[in-house]
């Protein structure tokens, strides 16, 4: 049986185990005078039986699937006559590929040596045997588990505690997956970065003022040495993010205050979702809006007052990015402002404060942690944003704080470094990982700083 079908069968068996456990707990309870004489509710006995059916079978299946391929391959290779044994690892891989191609019918057996054809036959028969075996073993394990769970049901058994323990473990595993993924990402970036710093000194990378990652692909090629000073990229990133935040924070905060404190219920019901639509527009769309609409307008405006504006400017990208992240600020700020208790508003208004005094002096300080959270989220989005910058700000790594010139950002450079034909161990490619690591550290620092600020200025209202 195929693995997919086997899993389906297992689901049916689990349902059956649940049903049987349920029936048995009722049957046991009846002579005692009802389910209140059981230690746990029938649901827990049934769940326990189902768990006994599911977990051992799934563990066996998982372990089997993890190892069977390697095992079969080794057996096939071992069956080859000594004369045709491959000489090294890559030859073995090549031969294995050939064998499995023949086995799956992609290659005709006539076109290969008879040894390989025989091995392909063996591979096919082994695979069939394997499928049979795994089906039988898993079903037997599931049945044994069900039987064990079913037999052990008794009125004294503490099924509720056991089921809850299993659920607790499940929750813990889910949380662990998220954490392990983060650790995994960090590790992969870290190890590649270490390789990069083996080729390029860390000081050159961290303090270098020139970014030009073009290196020779072949030894005989005439190309620049390549220089990996990351400062221009970070300056570009910070410049564009700063422009974006200059747009998003005031606009977002003020619209949040309007929505939460002044807008009539009807306007609010319409305007809040409408504002959140901004967050749902794909960034590519923002990108060509920036490149095709905003950038030319800025250029014309600049020229009309005698300024020299690049056709791809940090200003265009930053402005459009700012619009994109408005909802992050406004939506979160609106939520926290609305969450400030009415009692505090009443207290302030009752003392004769106006609405705007109340907002400035009572509501805003009380809502500050949430507002900071929203701004931080917006900042992380701005720093990590790629598409708008690729399309509107260009690729030139200019070291400038003039928003009218073309700049580039860390994320854009990561994209350009990793696309196209590349050796995977060249400094040029590895630089992407070092940039990623730096970006990660930057956002982490931002988080820490923001948390610190929130802790310091927070006014707790409950």
């Amino acid at each position, binding site marked *: 049986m195929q693995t997919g079908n086997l899993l389906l069968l297992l689901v049916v068996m689990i349902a059956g185990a649940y049903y049987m456990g349920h029936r048995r707990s009722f049957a046991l309870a009846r002579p005692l005078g009802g389910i209140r004489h059981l230690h746990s509710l029938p649901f827990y006995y049934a769940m326990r039986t189902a768990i006994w059916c599911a977990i051992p079978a799934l563990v066996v299946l998982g372990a089997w699937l993890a190892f069977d391929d390697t095992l079969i391959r080794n057996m096939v290779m071992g069956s080859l006559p000594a004369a045709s044994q491959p000489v090294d690892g890559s030859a073995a891989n090549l031969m294995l590929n050939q064998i499995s191609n023949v086995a799956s019918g992609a290659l005709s057996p006539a076109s290969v040596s008879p040894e390989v054809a025989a091995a392909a036959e063996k591979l096919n028969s082994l695979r069939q045997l394997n499928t049979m075996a795994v089906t039988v073993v898993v079903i037997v394990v599931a049945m044994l588990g069900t039987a064990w769970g079913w037999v052990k049901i008794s009125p004294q058994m503490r099924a509720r505690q056991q089921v809850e323990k299993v659920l607790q473990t499940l929750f813990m595993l889910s949380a662990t997956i998220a954490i392990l993924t983060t650790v995994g990402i960090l590790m992969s970036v870290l190890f590649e970065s270490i390789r990069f710093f083996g080729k390029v000194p860390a000081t050159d990378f961290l303090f270098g003022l020139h970014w030009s990652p073009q290196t020779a692909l072949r030894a005989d090629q005439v190309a620049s040495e390549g220089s990996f000073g990351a400062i221009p990229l970070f300056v570009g990133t910070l410049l564009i993010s700063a422009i974006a935040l200059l747009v998003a924070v005031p606009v977002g905060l003020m619209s949040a205050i309007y929505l939460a404190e002044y807008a*009539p*219920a009807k306007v609010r019901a319409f305007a809040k979702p409408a504002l959140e639509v901004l967050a749902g527009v794909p960034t590519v769309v923002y990108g060509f809006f920036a490149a095709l609409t905003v950038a030319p307008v800025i250029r014309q405006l600049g020229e009309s007052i005698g300024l020299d504006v690049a056709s791809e400017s940090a200003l265009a990208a930053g402005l459009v990015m700012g619009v994109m992240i408005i909802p992050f600020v406004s939506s979160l700020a609106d939520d926290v402002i609305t969450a400030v*208790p009415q*009692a*505090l*508003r*009443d*207290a*302030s*208004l*009752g*003392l*004769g*404060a*106006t609405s705007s*005094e109340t907002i400035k*002096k*009572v509501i805003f*300080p*009380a809502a500050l942690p949430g507002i900071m959270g929203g701004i931080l989220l917006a900042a992380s989005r701005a720093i990590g944003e790629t598409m708008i910058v690729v399309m509107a700000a260009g690729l030139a790594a200019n070291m400038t704080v003039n928003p009218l010139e073309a700049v580039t950002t860390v994320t854009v450079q990561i994209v350009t470094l990793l696309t196209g034909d590349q050796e995977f161990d060249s400094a040029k490619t590895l630089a992407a990982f070092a940039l990623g690591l730096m970006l990660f550290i930057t956002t982490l620092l931002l988080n820490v700083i923001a948390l610190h600020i929130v802790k310091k200025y927070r*006014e*707790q*209202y409950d």
Partner: protein
Amino acid sequence: MDTAEKFDDKAPGNAKLADQIEGEQAMDETIRYPDQTVGTPYVDNPKMRMRDVEVFYGEKQAIHGVSLDIGKNEVVALIGPSGCGKSTFLRCLNRMNDTIDICQVKGNLHLEDQDLYDPKLDVVELRARVGMVFQKPNPFPKSIYDNVAYGPRIHGLANKKYDLDEIVETSLQKAGLWNEVKDRLHSPGTGLSGGQQQRLCIARTIAVSPEVVLMDEPCSALDPIATAKIEELIAELSQSYTIAIVTHSMQQAARVSNRTAYFHLGRLVEMNDTDTVFTKPEHDLTEAYITGRFG
């Protein structure tokens, strides 16, 4: 001064009816509302004068034609079962009902010569003259000092730091809190105990020197000792302020007030000297309520 007519339906059978009442629904059908208030709701030279006040929440009428006076330096207690409109009425007196969109107030309400619902009136000024203390202590999440200084700051009552310090100190002294907090004026007001928080809220209210202080069940969230302290405070404050207090505790009304108004289903049933209300109430509904037969 008007002498209110006695409730014309005050027949012997009425008390029986009041006995039968289970919920407000039953009351709607079986008892005629008192169209006129019994007792003496009016005084000479009142501080606040309310006539024919009606309040609507959307379609629903919460208060039906209530007329009463609050005299100078008087403590008036508003009592009555839950949902009878006493808090709503109190919130009309400094227009706190403005914050509720669907709430509409009709009638004549005056603070001395000032019409409270005059469209030209600045509500900010009104609330500085008529302060409010709420049911649940609601100090700002700021320091004790900043809590008390909040009102004086927004109204520009102090020019110098020294003046502000003085206002804060006298307000806290009047609220009977100074000795307990003078060494920690800059620690958060939310860190005080419930009773202290409520006295802080009272200090905050009197810091802007209001003429009238409205209190909406100021002790309902407090323990008996804290309650006793607040009641003592109310007696002291009544020497310089006019006070209207909503309370669920009849003992409290009896202890702190000069006159008591009994509200029932949005109407003012009876208003009299507190002694009269609690010893020989004129209206059967009042008697039924204060003797605990319903409410």
